[in-house]
């Protein structure tokens, strides 16, 4: 059923793109790649790994494994308004209703046999150890082998060595399941592609910083997290190029209306994944999200001659792998670079990792003159959504910013 669902999206978007073969259509190309990934995940013959968010997807892609972080499924279920059914299933089976809803939705999908059975599972302790528990449960349920990348919080030489060693061990674990050893050449090529894509991503973010910004509130929604799935592939480079080109085109044609960004906003952590009229709510007040916390490049280029260490350094550089001081410093840097007027933190319920320190994040941004709107939204579970209340708080917030 899911295979057919993704296949129909793939053919629909492909047909649309064929109508205008020379158009840029960045979001469509991105949606096509995501649907094609869904199709591969649900096809019978792919080798599949369910992973944690910070798994090295370029390495896995170079080893011919169709891999994806499980939270992607949670987000997808929310976006198609089917998450509720699965969350209920998980809750009925005894999983805590106040845990992260990405995980609850995935757990329910697993219990209802709506997830493709993986060949193996790779957990990561970053961004959250809550995700590790889900991976362990999955390994038990599917009776599949589990590998875990423990991501230390520091970037000390010992921490880098430990993570690099685990990544090398992970490659051995994967090879043990696919029957194909890691090819240093193929990994080198994949890392070169990651570097090529990363240069483009930096250009995209560079363009997004301009005033007025060529992005609209949705343009880079979920981009930084989802694009990692396509790292190490030509497809990933092509998607990034399309995004870069579309922004350049918008700037060249002065496509953005400055009156639509009287207020430039930063979104903290994850976006709301179920259908929610965020853009229109913001647009009514002339406000626009120009940057997401998760849209940034914090790492140096990958070194194909030293692959495990450079991948380790990349994972360790992600602010969510580190302590809150690093996270606040990163948010402050983004706030300055994008010249934002305010920040919205949805405070995704159930996320101890990200939402846990919301007071410290608010203090850190207020320190540099950036007001923060802390909401109480479950970004995946819409069952308790108080839309009217959110609208009122948005309005009050934007009014306050406009003085």
């Amino acid at each position, binding site marked *: 059923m899911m295979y057919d669902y993704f296949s129909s999206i793939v053919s629909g978007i492909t047909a649309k793109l064929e109508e205008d073969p020379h158009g840029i259509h960045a979001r469509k190309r991105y949606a096509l790649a995501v649907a094609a990934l869904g199709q591969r995940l649900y096809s019978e013959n792919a080798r599949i790994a369910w992973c944690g968010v910070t798994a090295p997807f370029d390495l896995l892609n170079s080893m011919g494994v169709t891999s994806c972080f499980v939270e992607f499924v949670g987000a997808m279920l929310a976006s198609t308004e089917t998450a509720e059914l699965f969350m209920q299933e998980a809750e009925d089976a005894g999983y*805590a209703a106040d*845990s992260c809803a990405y995980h609850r939705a995935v757990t329910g999908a697993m219990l209802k046999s709506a997830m493709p059975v993986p060949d193996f599972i790779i957990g990561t302790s970053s961004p959250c*150890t809550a995700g590790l*528990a889900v991976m362990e449960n999955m390994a038990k349920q599917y009776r599949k082998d589990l590998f*875990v990348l423990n991501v230390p919080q520091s970037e000390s030489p010992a921490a880098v060595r430990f993570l690099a060693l685990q990544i090398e061990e992970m490659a051995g674990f994967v090879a043990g399941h696919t029957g194909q050893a890691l090819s240093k050449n193929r990994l080198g090529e994949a890392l070169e592609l990651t570097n090529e894509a990363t240069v483009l991503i930096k250009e995209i973010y560079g363009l997004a910083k301009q005033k007025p910004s060529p992005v609209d509130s949705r343009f880079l929604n979920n981009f930084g997290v989802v694009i990692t799935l396509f790292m190490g592939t030509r497809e990933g480079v092509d998607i990034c190029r399309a995004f870069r080109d579309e922004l350049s085109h918008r700037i060249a044609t002065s496509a953005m209306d400055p009156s639509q960004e009287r207020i430039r906003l930063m979104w903290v952590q994850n976006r709301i994944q179920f259908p929610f009229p965020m853009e229109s709510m913001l647009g009514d007040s002339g406000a626009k999200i120009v940057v997401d916390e998760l849209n940034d490049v914090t790492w140096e280029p990958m070194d194909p001659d030293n692959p495990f260490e450079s991948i380790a350094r990349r994972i360790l550089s992600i602010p969510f792998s580190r302590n809150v001081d690093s996270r606040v410093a990163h948010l402050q840097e983004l706030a300055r670079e994008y010249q934002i007027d305010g920040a919205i933190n949805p405070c995704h*319920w159930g996320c*101890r*990792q990200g939402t*846990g*320190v919301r007071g410290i994040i608010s203090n850190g941004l207020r320190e540099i003159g950036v007001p923060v709107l802390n909401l109480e939204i479950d970004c995946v579970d819409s069952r308790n959504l108080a839309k009217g209340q959110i609208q009122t708080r948005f309005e009050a917030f934007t009014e306050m910013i406009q003085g």
Partner: protein
Amino acid sequence: MKNKILGFTCAYAPVPIIEAAGFQAFRVLPQGECPDQAGQLLHDNLCPHVKRVLDRALDNDLPGVSAMVFVNSCDSMRRVADAWRSARPGDQVMVLDLPSTNTPSSIDFLATEYERMARTFFTWNNLTFSRERVRERINVWNDLSQTLALLETKMGEAFYPGLAAEVQTVVNTAATDSVDAALAMAKAAVTKAWVPAGGHAPVFLFGNLLFDPKVFDLFERWNMHVTRLDFCTGSRFVSTVDLSQTDDPFAALARSYMTGPPCARTMDITRPGSIAQKIVERAGASNARAVMGFTLKFCDPYLARIPGIRQALQAAGLPFLMLEGDCTMGDIGQQQTRIEAFTEMLGV
């Protein structure tokens, strides 16, 4: 002269290292009457353990503590370590990286972390780093753990009123005062003439934190014979360190802590979900006829494993009662009816 006090919040912070560096180890337990203030820095959806600990920090309810070690054990613990710097900027603070798995590379890494911890503490206290001193304190710790094991065996053999609370008092003494004092208490408890009683249902207890000795007296009043205190504030806290395999005390600590009875946050990836089976085995070994779990609200590591634990207990034919709360006496008191119904159902 009294030793300086070094606070800790997680059972994976080895007390022998803290004491070897000349500190009094003080586990900051989530107790006391200080007002709820943690919400200034942390979200309400964190477990009451870390929120209460932060309340104590914000209320300055930590007499003499000038240094802290946090363990990167779960998301909530990471966050309280973050908040500490804002709450008590004057404290010396160290965060220890604790892997989630017990693979050989994780254990090797943890050994280097424990050595880093020891070197940091010796430096903080202006003492010369000494591996030998760490070994000495491990030996005393092991003496305590073996003495406590005698008391725990006794707990499983028959119902001795007051014994569970006594064991908990010994553990609390090791956690908040000194291992030497705890050892003296444990030895006295071993020689005490405990009088067995009948008519109580033998129940194995497990979970994250339950540390007030009065709670176990209450359970006894509610007809329960507590056969084991498998909490990170109970028997899991004082586990034996096997020094026979290596000369390196840090390697010994890392191996023993990662392969001993696990907290839910530590995984054996070769046997996913094996915590459930281990609980079944330990409950059986303690002669329990039933199992009661207690976990704090919002504790992802435990709550995510409860369905698996429930299944394993069901398969083993062990009745199971699961409680979730904030580990205050008031909260436990509200569970009286459920616990009494449970022990009654066991029909002793």
